[in-house]
């Protein structure tokens, strides 16, 4: 590695040098070493490919590179061969020799390792896969290309160019203005315009000049991993964004940085740590960065481990060493946040957008997305958003699309639709406190304001697809319990409110719903929402409200008819064997844990309803679809 850059000319020269030496490379084997692929054995592949290349004496022609998450973890470990972009999925150690000999050396494709869609169609190139083809990968663009532990890789693809462009060159106020005009809104939940936040933090009185620049990497939403993937795959993009933020918000002065990161993310912590160290060694962090006069460094702070610690004031309390409990924000954190200093907190993905905006300009950025932000950053949603698409869809993974893309496009074109010939029922956006939207909202353009108006939210980008076998009352029950457990427990309205909400929903699902329950749910929901202190309580009833709004009939059936149409709530269903379909194979009778099934060999069987515990094992084991739920 080079010695520290004294100014942006040094950085430029070093990059030129890098590009020159790199031109000798002809082929690259990119192996995903994100958390998902590592869990399915990617690190062994990295070693294996290195060895295989060495043994064949191919080191000069072939580069083996471990990268961050490619977003298609379900199919991992993934290997992409450049420059052809051939994508191999579920690669095993035993496939290495064949890939090298047949593809790298022989120029052939190993059919068996290609991705195949539900219709049996195989795809060779990564960018032809429907999963990737319909995305717009800006933030995740480099994830499959660069080695996250190599700052040279990042520099080679243009990293730290944005920093060099502004540091010591653009006035800090001007940079704030650029971010405001870009319409960038917070990706961590609230969708607050980042530029407005930066400007307020910059304007806040601060006699000693200490302003805190924080990155929220707590990512507590179950199933969400966009922030983890950015940090694991391209940590320098977040660091670069934060240094630009430090200049814009805190110069001249003594800005100080923190990344508050979830303790359950060891790989991200490690990669971020390496990246910070590299940035320090090159003088991109520390004193007088690129000769601009800016002094700034970033510390890593490991999270307190609770969902609520991601809330801004709880996060700051946690960094200060207190219990992560939210406090009232009548005085904003931009004025008095961490240790009562002006503090600017943004999400990982928000920070990662910053270099891109600086690099490519406001005009380019505002060309992507919805609405008009030329006068007011609240006027639209610009740029892309990464979603963690999970649940009942063919392709699950990380999906980055322009703001305003319809749910249908995400779920059907990218996600490949609902598996098993089932029907779509709902999609929950925004994490545990997001709302569930029904089929007639599939054409909704996904942006901050449209989702909120429909009774859901962008949140940090969770997206759970549900099919007809999902009971919506049960869904509301599940998320209510999650939030009741994760509430910090301070407010009576949130702590006791969610506990009671969970109880009522438990009762309804257990077949003990009473007349008046729905009204009780609504009145309690109103108080949880409006009388609680922080956004956890204030948004906690979204799952309830949205399901009551779009699937009210299902609630009514549970309470009045004692029926669960999805066949999920055990107390409300019964299993029956269809006599004309039953072949008398006796397997269900053998497997029933309660011996509730009787019948002679080759004669139709029957279930004794008084013994049946509705576990559904009989339905699962019957090969003739003779067991039905009603």
């Amino acid at each position, binding site marked *: 590695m080079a010695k520290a850059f004294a100014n942006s000319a040094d950085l430029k020269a070093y990059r030129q040098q890098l590009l020159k030496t790199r031109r000798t490379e002809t082929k690259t084997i990119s192996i995903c070493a994100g958390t998902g692929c590592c869990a399915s054995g990617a690190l062994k592949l990295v070693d294996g490919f290195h060895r295989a290349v060495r043994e064949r004496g191919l080191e000069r022609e072939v580069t083996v590179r471990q990268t961050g998450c490619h977003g298609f973890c379900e199919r991992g470990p993934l290997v992409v061969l450049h420059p052809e972009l051939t994508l191999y999925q579920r690669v095993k150690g035993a496939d290495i020799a064949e890939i090298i000999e047949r593809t790298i050396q022989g120029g052939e494709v190993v059919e068996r390792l290609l991705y195949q869609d539900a219709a049996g169609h195989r795809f060779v190139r990564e960018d032809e896969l429907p999963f990737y083809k319909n995305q717009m990968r800006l933030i995740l663009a480099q994830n499959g290309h660069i080695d996250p532990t190599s700052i040279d890789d990042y520099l080679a693809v243009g990293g730290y160019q944005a920093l060099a462009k502004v540091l010591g060159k653009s006035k800090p106020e001007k940079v704030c203005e650029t971010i405001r005009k870009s319409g960038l809104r917070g990706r961590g939940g609230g969708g607050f315009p980042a530029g407005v936040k930066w400007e307020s933090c910059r304007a806040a009185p601060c006699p000693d000049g200490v302003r805190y620049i924080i990155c929220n990497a707590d990512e507590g939403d179950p199933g969400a991993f966009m922030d983890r993937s950015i940090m694991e795959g391209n940590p320098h993009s977040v660091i670069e964004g934060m240094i630009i933020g430090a200049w814009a918000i805190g110069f001249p002065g003594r800005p100080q940085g923190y990344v508050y990161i979830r303790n359950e993310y060891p790989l991200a912590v490690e990669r971020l740590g390496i990246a910070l160290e590299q940035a320090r060694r090159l003088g991109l962090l520390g004193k007088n960065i690129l000769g601009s006069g800016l002094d700034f460094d970033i510390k890593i702070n490991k999270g307190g481990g*609770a969902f609520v610690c991601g809330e801004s004031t709880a996060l700051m309390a946690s960094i200060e060493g207190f219990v992560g409990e939210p406090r009232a924000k009548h005085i904003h954190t931009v004025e008095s946040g961490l240790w009562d200093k002006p503090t600017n907190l943004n999400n990982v993905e928000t920070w990662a957008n910053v270099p891109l905006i600086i690099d490519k300009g406001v005009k380019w950025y505002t060309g992507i997305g919805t609405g008009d932000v030329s006068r007011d950053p609240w006027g639209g949603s610009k740029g892309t958003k990464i979603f963690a698409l999970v649940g009942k869809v063919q392709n699950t993974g990380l999906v980055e699309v322009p703001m305003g893309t319809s749910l249908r496009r995400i779920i059907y074109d990218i996600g490949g639709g609902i598996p098993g010939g089932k029907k779509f029922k709902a999609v929950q956006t925004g994490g545990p406190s997001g709302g569930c939207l029904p089929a007639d909202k599939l054409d909704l353009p996904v942006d901050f304001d449209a989702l909120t108006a429909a009774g859901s939210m962008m949140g940090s980008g969770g997206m759970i697809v549900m099919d007809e076998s999902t009971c919506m009352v049960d869904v509301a029950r599940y998320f209510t319990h999650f939030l009741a457990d994760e509430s910090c427990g301070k407010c009576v309205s949130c702590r006791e409110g969610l506990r009671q909400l969970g109880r009522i929903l438990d009762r309804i699902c257990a077949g003990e719903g009473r007349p008046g329950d729905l009204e009780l749910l609504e009145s309690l929901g109103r108080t949880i929402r409006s009388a609680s202190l922080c956004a956890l309580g204030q948004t906690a009833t979204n799952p309830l409200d949205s399901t009551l709004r779009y699937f009210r009939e299902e609630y009514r059936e549970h309470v009045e008819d004692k029926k669960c149409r999805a066949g999920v709530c055990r107390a409300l269903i019964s299993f029956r064997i269809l006599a004309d379909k039953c072949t008398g194979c006796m397997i269900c009778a053998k497997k029933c844990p309660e011996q509730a099934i009787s019948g002679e060999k080759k004669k139709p069987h029957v279930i004794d309803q008084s013994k049946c515990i509705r576990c559904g094992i009989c339905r699962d084991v019957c090969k003739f679809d003779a067991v039905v739920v009603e």
Partner: protein
Amino acid sequence: MTESQSREVTFKVDGRSLRGRQGESLLEALRRYGYQVPSLCHHEAVSPYGACRLCLVEVQKGKRRKLTTSCNYPLMEGIEVFLDTEQVVSNRRVVLQLLLAQAPAAERVRQLAAEYGVNDTPFEVEDPENRCINCGLCARVCKEVVGVEAIGFSGRGAGKRMVAPYDETAEDCIGCGACVFVCPTDCIGMSETGGIRTIERWHRKLPLKTCSVCGRHFAPTFQLNKFAEWTGLPRGHFDKCPDCR
């Protein structure tokens, strides 16, 4: 008090123009003018916490009007406060119903609920004996007034409870009884028998010192030793009870 807090500001309550100090607790300012606002987790001696959600009011600041608790609302120039609006009253009633279900044995909760016309709760009662409402006053007084951190919350969500560390004995408790005094629902308990003071909820038992002059038990020895440590006075100073000193 900082300089900005001593600045006088004007604000309105249900249309009436009033004055107060910038940054002071809105609840305290309201009470000074004789307004009745219910509360269970507030005490002037300690920092506001915002747990009971009873001191709700509506505040208009600029164009935005919102429901908020008043105990932790810092008074600002030009705000307009609305006291018992329909929003305030209906939400307060639900909060009282929730408190009745959580702490049915708490006399103070029952009284307050009755004052607001809530005599019953539609919600399930967890523990008919419970009185603690997690207001956190005991721990705040212990830390901020007494200067000890003998007790605190453990857990979160519905499982959150006020306990001595690890739910065992509060080893740092000096037995002063400040928490007992401040607890709105009387659920800590203190007793003295056979020369031992017990703070029941924290499982703390402290032998009492006998006055070297009058022979009365007067304070826990542990506490007197702490006082000696804090004040720098010789331990001998605390051999006599305050009356005989």
